């Protein structure tokens, strides 16, 4: 077992364990904290896969900004909230069966798709995934999608303000 595989295995266990913790914890604040752990583990995996810039974006945007937004809304609405009983008694069992089917499909794809080579990951050029290389690609080949994304963020910002401003006096 190589060092890289040991790191990969450890991060995978942390990510899967924290994801399960997120699903089973009754308090929504704990769910958020577990999800932050998942995101940080995935960020380190990105570093392992030579995606330095994406790893930093993951930490800053996902683990930072988005999760703070979640925490803020939970604090606003109250975390000590008890879930209702499921309206259908067979809901939990059905969900488990469907998830099991999904994971079987994923396993088949993961084993068949990489082909005979086993999908071994080879060498990449120096600077692969660095901010400079991503930026060059982003502003040359993907300039239009980049501008559309900025427009989308603007629309989302306006939408969030409109949805939450509440009753306005006329």
């Amino acid at each position, binding site marked *: 077992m190589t060092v890289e*595989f040991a790191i990969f295995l450890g991060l995978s266990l942390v990510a899967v364990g924290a994801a399960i913790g997120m699903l089973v914890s009754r308090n929504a604040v704990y769910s958020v904290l577990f999800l932050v752990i998942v995101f940080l583990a995935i960020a380190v995996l990105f570093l392992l896969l030579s995606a330095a810039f994406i790893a930093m974006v993951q930490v800053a945007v996902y683990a930072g900004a988005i999760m703070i937004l979640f925490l803020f809304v939970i604090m606003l609405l109250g975390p000590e*909230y008890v*879930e209702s009983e*499921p309206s259908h008694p067979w809901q939990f069992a059905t969900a488990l069966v469907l998830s099991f089917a999904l994971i079987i499909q994923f*396993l088949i794809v993961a084993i068949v798709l990489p082909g005979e080579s086993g999908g071994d990951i080879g060498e990449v050029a120096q600077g692969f995934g660095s901010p400079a290389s991503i930026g060059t690609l982003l502003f040359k080949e993907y300039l239009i999608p980049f501008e559309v994304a900025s427009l989308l*963020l603007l629309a989302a910002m306006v939408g969030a303000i409109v949805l939450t401003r509440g009753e306005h006096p006329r």
Partner: protein
Amino acid sequence: MIPGVSMTHILILSGVLFTLGALGVLIRRNSIVMFMAIELMLNAANLAFVGFARSMEALSGQVFVFFVIAVAAAEVAVGLALIVSVYRSRSSIDIDKVSDLRG
């Protein structure tokens, strides 16, 4: 070179995380936690993207992850605003209590 780690391992981890996210959407009724499970599924897809970008030496995969993160940020802002708005009218964020459109 990443000795010992192959695309199969990355795809398995990505699939397991995606399945846990889907399971979360199916079994929880707290809409905020369901929303977090959706974020988990997006991240699992991002992991597969970055893995393929690395194994095929195509940087476009990483640019796509960047766009997915941007769209996820927009989605979270609007989705949480919707949840706050639902809470204001129902005093609850339980997904089973928001079933007025049910036939």
